[in-house]
């Protein structure tokens, strides 16, 4: 009678061991977003973007892993936007190729802003390199902080939503303005796929409203009653996350350990 119990307990433990590595993996972003893991290389099959916007409103939309190649003039402010999801860490790598015959050194910068046009810090990378007059190209880089799933409204932490990249020259001799340059840019997700350690969820991602606004003529009337969109059950249950897996596995382990512990207190089987 004891033997089958122990046997089934062992089976459970084995199942648990199998399930464990799957735990953290399940918590990551959807597979499509994980294509560009590790090195800043373009996703296979991603179409090259050959455009760039010139303002926040006209930024060209790209995605992580999609290479950008565009010709521009020295002095242009080039804008791209890409979507960020919770848990991702984005790395931006850009190369600017110069023509011959520049008159002096120039300093280039790649800046990143979130959907509310708040400046985002770079944790690594050459964000503002200077190219000498003889240089034929300059390489820029910026690694962003991990995108959080929730943050206080008063904080400027990176949140899911749109991110803007602005590439421009900040310092150069004036005669070099207007000269043609070639710009290569790649945004890649270098996160290890782990979900962020945050609880909470941003209800609406930081995607800017780009429609032309309307000026209201009067104070809006008292609002229509806000109905609770969620059912009782979904409001009460914690949202889906790796915590479900961890906790369930913990429960199974506890049960197995309980059975083992119970079995240990039995008299040893007679020979």
């Amino acid at each position: 009678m004891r033997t089958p119990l122990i046997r089934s307990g062992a089976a459970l433990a084995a199942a648990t061991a199998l399930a464990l590595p799957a735990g953290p993996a399940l918590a990551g972003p959807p597979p499509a977003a994980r294509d560009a893991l590790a090195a800043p290389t373009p996703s296979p099959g991603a179409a090259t973007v050959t455009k760039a916007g010139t303002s926040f409103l006209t930024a060209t939309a790209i995605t992580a892993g999609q290479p950008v190649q565009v010709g521009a003039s020295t002095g242009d402010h080039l804008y791209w936007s890409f979507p960020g999801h919770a848990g991702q860490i984005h790395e931006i790598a850009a190369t600017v190729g110069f023509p011959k015959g520049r008159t002096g050194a120039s300093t280039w910068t790649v800046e990143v802003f979130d959907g509310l046009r708040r400046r985002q810090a770079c944790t690594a990378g050459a964000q503002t390199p200077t190219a000498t007059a003889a240089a034929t190209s300059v390489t820029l880089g910026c690694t962003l902080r991990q995108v959080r799933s929730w943050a206080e409204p008063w904080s400027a932490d990176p949140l899911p939503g749109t991110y803007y990249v602005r590439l421009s020259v900040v310092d150069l001799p004036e005669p070099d303005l207007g000269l043609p340059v070639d710009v290569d840019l790649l945004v890649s997700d270098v996160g290890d796929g782990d979900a962020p350690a945050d609880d909470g969820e941003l209800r609406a991602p930081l995607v800017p409203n780009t429609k032309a606004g309307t000026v209201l003529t009067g104070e809006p009337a008292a609002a229509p009653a806000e109905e609770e969109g969620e059912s009782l059950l979904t409001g009460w249950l914690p949202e889906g996350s790796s915590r479900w897996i961890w906790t369930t596995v913990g429960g199974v382990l506890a049960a197995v350990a309980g059975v083992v512990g119970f079995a240990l207190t039995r008299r040893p089987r007679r020979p």
Partner: protein
Amino acid sequence: MLTGPAPAWADEETPAEPPRVELVLDVSGSMRARDIDGRSRISVAQQAFNEVVDALPEETQLGIRVLGATYKGKDKKVGCQDTQQIVPVGQVDRTQAKAAVATLRPTGFTPVGLALRSAAQDLGTGATARRIVLITDGEDTCAPPDPCEVARELAAQGTKLVVDTLGLAPDDKVRRQLLCIANATGGTYTAAQSADELTGRIKQLVDRARDTYTAAPAVVGGSAGCPDAPLLAPGVYTDREQFSEHRWYRVPVRPGQELRASVSIALDRPVNPDYGVLLRATAPDGRELVRGVDAGSGRTDVVSAGLRWSAAADTDADADEGETPSPAPGDADAAPTTVCLVVSNAFAPRPGTRATPGMPIELTVDVVASSPAPGGPDLGRGWVLLVLLTLAGLLTGLVAGLLTRWWVATWREN
């Protein structure tokens, strides 16, 4: 967290009007110079125009205006009125447009300012952005009006207008003038050194006009104080702000909603190298709720700041204070709070920089469902948790086993 943000362009409505671009070509006497790949500037420009007309996107309405093309005399007064639209803005008849371009011969003066003003009229007014591509090789010989002032004045009018400039083998003076025109309108400046560069750049600009012309914000006029400030619905707005000026706006925010606002101030004129922008959200009584700030130094196009603020938190705060001067009548849960937004800047004009019209502001306002602070996690995560649960289970099993053994022993004895 498992669902990603929707793409920003998901719900873009189809615009009512097609993209409108006008090419403005300088045909003044200096275009005769043969210094681009051994060819004359005008022939390079003509070839570029032909290729652009051939590659024109179907929906784009293109017009061509020339300046200095007809008057051969020496009278500056007459020569400086010399600008004609040779292809009207509209669906382009390719053969006709090419024929019109082919007949151009370098002739007269360079009335850039007047040509820009006329080009803006050619493009008309409307809700979407218009683009002028100015191709010139020489400095304006007809100021006043100074073309840069004209560009700034056109940009300050209601319709969004962008002037991109292309210099053909430009010298220092031409470059400065074209840079000034481009900066004043948020356009770009290119020095074209070869026919290929010129063609490629004009094509790129015409394509860009098609891709981006719908992104034109609504014009609004901020006030000097909160009570009479314009009430804004979610969307993008544009305004002008002078040095050291404060511009106020109001946004109604209901409890359970989150206000998101961002502002960009464009540096459309020479300013001192250090600058900043401040966006503050205040309650109607002047109490600051949150601020967004950014500062910078050196060459840039816009300086931006943004903020988020949740209405729910403020309702609580008001309840705590207990004596809000104007308590909301009726259903307090649904009555919107009005949040005042004030935009201020820390730009310093260089000597000789004109203060009016103000620098362009772009204000984005959005009101979305607020994201409540998460409660403590109901579930756990991590190896420590597993070890703890396993130990607890083991301990429980041991205790249960010992108890059972003790109980069985006692039961047997009795």
